[in-house]
């Protein structure tokens, strides 16, 4: 009786210990194995992107881009995509990331805190728009939003929060709609929340909206756009201030060289939802964005 | 017959194997009869009590109450039987957070459907209230009717327990050492009250206080090791019988005049 009980106790504790180890072990083991295979070159280039959609899917999709950047810089590239926008800003400020894909507002935050260096952006990013969508018949204009539940994406998103909120106020939408809005955390999550009527309306990035309708993820007969914002400047690639300028140059050039005419470039451009070519960034163009953020109380 | 037991056996699985607490007990109790069961502790008195109030099912043998075989009854019929049997336990067993009046009202539970029980929770029916106040008056506790069960003294609690039986209006009353938790000074007055409760009803009491039992009950059953040792009128109980019942400490039997018993239960006759 006593023996079997103490055995049961021992077995239970060993199981606990094994599970605790399993949580710890395999990860370390894999890094050790990779290092042994010589995969881990010294000082990889650390790249990050704001999670505009599902981070794990973005990671998978970004493989050709990573390969291109590795070719261009001659260094290994480690891409990390955290769970929220703020983490990318934080990582760049802390010097844990060398190059990052920002939204307009996150770039403003990063340059304010750590002087991020703008590199390149898609030509469409210079005149970007947010789409206001709904699945309700009684929402036809901004005025109909009074008393309705509204969804933004991430609180730090330019096209998913800052600019839609800014324009809503400018257009005289009932301020309680903005005050009581909820945050889905990502553009595709906003679209699905609207489609499933968990909210009455929402605002999101036009590029993501196009992709979702093209891929059939959202039925355009049920969910429709009822308003589009005036243009504003948005996404860009930027580098940490301390990054070697030659490396930064190489990266910028790699993007600038992407050509929709070349078949080998087309998948990468599609992935980045770029219709045309990449262009250099004019940092001064972000001043209105900064002003809007201050007006919205999102930047101090 | 009020109670009729035939060859009742009840065994329990204990550490030392099966133990027969009752080992072939047969007993007939006529309606209106008063009977006391005597015996040392471990004789099976409490088991017998459980079998009589139908909460314990005998392992063997038949138990009849008012002619019906209890073990064959459906649960509904069993409940109907139970409400005809009033029980006074060793401890008063009141619900501590209810008032004396509500506790006495609980004698009616066997008569209630669930809907009635809910209604009684909100407002008892006038008839029930009348019964309760009459019973509380009979046990002299009307002035304490609003006191909580756990605010009453031990004697008061046992009086409420008796009022509860009065309210139940059973045809038979069972009492398991009803006074053992009480001060000796209270016992006589309480036995008087028990007499009130059992007026016109069969009364079966289980006791260890031989003197008291012989004084108050006309029929005496001696129970030892789960068997009936003797079953005689009180007047015929001999010291030898008691010696056999309590082997080590045979109590001396006092002569009890018939009259004293009659006094105690004066209201009965």
């Amino acid at each position: 009786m006593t023996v079997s009980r103490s055995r049961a106790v021992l077995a239970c504790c060993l199981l606990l210990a094994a599970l605790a180890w399993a949580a710890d072990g395999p990860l370390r083991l894999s890094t050790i194995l990779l290092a042994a295979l010589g995969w881990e070159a010294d000082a990889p280039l650390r790249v990050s992107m704001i999670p505009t959609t599902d981070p794990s899917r973005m990671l998978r999709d970004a493989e050709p881009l990573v390969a291109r950047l590795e070719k261009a810089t001659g260094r290994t590239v480690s891409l990390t995509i955290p769970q929220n926008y703020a983490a990318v800003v934080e990582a760049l400020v802390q010097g844990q990331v060398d190059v990052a894909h920002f939204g307009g507002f996150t770039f403003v935050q990063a340059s304010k805190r750590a002087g991020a260096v703008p590199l390149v952006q898609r030509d469409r990013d210079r005149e970007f728009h947010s789409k206001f969508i709904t699945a309700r018949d009684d929402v036809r204009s901004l005025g109909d939003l009074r008393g309705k539940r509204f969804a933004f994406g991430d609180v730090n998103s330019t096209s998913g929060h800052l600019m839609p909120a800014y324009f809503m106020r400018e257009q005289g939408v009932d301020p309680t709609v903005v005050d009581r809005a909820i945050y889905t955390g990502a553009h595709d999550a906003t679209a699905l929340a609207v489609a499933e009527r968990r909210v009455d309306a929402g605002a999101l990035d036009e590029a993501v909206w196009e992709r979702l309708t093209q891929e059939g993820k959202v039925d355009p007969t049920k969910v429709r756009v009822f308003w589009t914002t005036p243009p504003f400047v948005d996404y860009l690639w930027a580098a940490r201030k301390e990054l070697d300028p030659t490396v930064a140059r190489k990266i910028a050039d790699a993007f600038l060289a992407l050509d929709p005419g070349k078949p080998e470039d087309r998948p990468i451009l599609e992935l980045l939802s770029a219709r045309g070519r990449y262009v250099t960034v004019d940092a001064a163009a972000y001043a209105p964005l900064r002003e809007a953020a201050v007006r919205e109380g999102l930047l101090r | 017959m009020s109670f009729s037991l035939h060859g009742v056996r009840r065994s329990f699985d204990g550490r030392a194997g099966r133990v027969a607490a009752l080992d072939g007990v047969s007993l007939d109790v006529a309606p209106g009869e008063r009977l006391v069961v005597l015996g040392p502790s471990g004789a099976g008195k409490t088991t017998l009590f459980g079998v009589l109030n139908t909460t314990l099912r005998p392992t063997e043998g038949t138990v009849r109450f008012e002619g019906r075989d209890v073990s064959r009854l459906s649960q509904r019929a069993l409940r109907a039987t139970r409400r005809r049997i009033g029980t006074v336990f060793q401890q008063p067993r009141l619900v501590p957070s209810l008032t004396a009046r509500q506790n006495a009202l609980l004698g009616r539970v066997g008569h209630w459907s669930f809907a009635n029980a809910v209604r009684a929770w909100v407002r008892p029916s006038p008839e029930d209230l009348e019964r309760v106040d009459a019973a509380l008056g009979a046990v002299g506790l009307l002035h304490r009717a609003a006191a909580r069960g756990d605010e009453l003294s031990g004697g008061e609690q046992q009086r409420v327990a008796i009022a509860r039986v009065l309210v139940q209006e059973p045809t038979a009353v069972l009492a398991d050492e009803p006074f053992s938790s009480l001060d000796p000074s209270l016992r006589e007055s309480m036995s008087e009250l028990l007499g009130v409760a059992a007026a016109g009803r069969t009364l079966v009491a289980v006791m260890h206080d031989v003197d008291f039992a012989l004084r108050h009950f006309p029929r005496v059953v001696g129970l030892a090791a789960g068997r009936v040792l003797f079953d005689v009128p009180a007047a015929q109980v001999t010291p030898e019988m008691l010696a056999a019942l309590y082997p080590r400490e045979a109590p001396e039997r006092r002569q009890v005049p018939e009259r004293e018993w009659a006094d105690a239960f004066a209201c009965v006759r």
Partner: protein
Amino acid sequence: MPSPACAEERTTPGPAASTRRSTNIPGLREAEPGRAAPAARALLRRRRVQLLLVGAFLAWSIAASDVSPGALVAPEALHGLGRLLRGMVPPDVSLGFLGVVAVAVGRTLAIGIAGTALAVLLAVPLGILATPRLFRPGALAAGRGPWAVVLFAAHLAARATLRVFRAVPDLLWALLFVVAVGLGPRAGALALGVSYAGVLGRVFADLLEDVEPSAAEALVASGGRRASLVLFALVPQALPGLVSYGLYSLECAIRSASVLGFVGAGGIGQEIQLSMRLFEYRQVSTLLLALLGLMLAGEAASRLLRRATRSVRVTGRPPLTGRGRKLVTLATLVAVVLSFRATELLGSADDGLLARMGRFAAQLFPPDLSLSFLAALREPLLQTLAVAGAGTLLGMVLAAALAPLASAGLMLRRPGAPGRPGVLDLLARLLHVTARSSLAVLRAIPELLWVLLCIVAVGFGPFAGVLALGLHTAGVLGRLWAEALDEAPADPVEVLEAAGASAPVWSLWGAWPQARPLVASYGLLRWEFNLRVSALVGFLGGGGLGLRLYNAIQLGFYDQVSTTVLLILGLVMLSDAVSDAVRRSWLAPATLRRDTARPVDSSLALQAGGLAA
């Protein structure tokens, strides 16, 4: 005459014992106002006012939290739920994902174990410092002079620290640590460590305060110093109690660990939150099954571990001795060390942890007390209160419906009971099993997961929060209430049975009046806990302060974070004070203290109270 019947008295409480338990308010029920004592009348008046206030609050909370039962049966809700349920089968059992689940489960366990161990480590010094008998002026072996004043100040500080540790919900701790040390299990372990240290430290201080003083007095008499007093006379007596309470909380800690992930603190919660956000319902159902398994395993493990600590009173089972005990001790140590490693509290390459926490803490000051921000907090604050109130009410209503069905005494025929078994018995058993298992499921799914599921049905907003709190509360309270009914003292119940009462009738008149104080006390505990949770459900779209907090963190406005945290802290302390007042005027002294829940259930009671000791 010797009383042979004495042996048969069993556990029947004597009249003396029951009188001691009474509230001593004569004439409270069926009160005759003219005769009631003035104190009793004042109490009656207080109760009436409290009832009125509580009723008004609940009515307001229903109105203010957009409760719309219609939304539950609207076509969209059914469609959304249908899509969710269809999407959940079959569970994702691909090898790759099972690997993810295994790591998540391991991490959750590691967070729970490391958090509890950390809590015990923190609780010992804080608990000693917080013991009044050691540091209050004029206390046992108190010194004199400036040194004693300093120590007394430290004592007060320790008590305040423990209070804050307890009052800030563990989820909020997790959120703060996620910001301070980054996403992942480390934040979870730290959050649990701090939040449970608040409880364990208090328990340790209470234990030290209650320790048999003779040994201590002897030491003082022989001129012992305070340090030796602590080391030799008090701590050895109190430590086993602390350890066994710590093991108690382990099960609870593992439960919490699975929830903390919803705010990014690692473990299975984080995976569920992620899969849910990405609409990967098949993954959600796999994770859900893993979570259920984890909860069951946690219950079993903590039962086993408790038996190793000699608390027979607690487990009702004989304790482990000799070799078994040593093995358990050893394995516990190993598990703790491994958990510390797995949660990166030990042996992590990345140092500067304390520096980062310090930097974050510095950014919290000074709090943003600008009027405009405070005004912006008013609405979410009210919403938080409303969600907690309406959620608790919903939970109580559901629990009241399910608890009687889940009570074994009421629904199940005792083996060997007289009377023929009937069809009704079978039906009752069926109902009973159904009710019990529904309660188990309601309980096993944490509130925050319920929020995500309810959002699918009724959309974002406070109503989703109300539903989520209500469903989980129903699971916990339903079981506690069923047990309170089952464990009501049997003697009066047997009387009613013997008088021919049917099970529903004796439950109403025998078991319910006796279980009432415990039922009320569990309800209050749950309210206190729900307020802590409702402050955070907004994080996931359930309305309330949580959303403000999340946005402030995301925007890096840490002064607003600290204002919100202070507000939640104040709200929690206020609500605890209010429910203490209610407790005092409604419950008998025996049920007053929150830690007097029956020992067997303390793990559940902890859950009910969310460790709100």
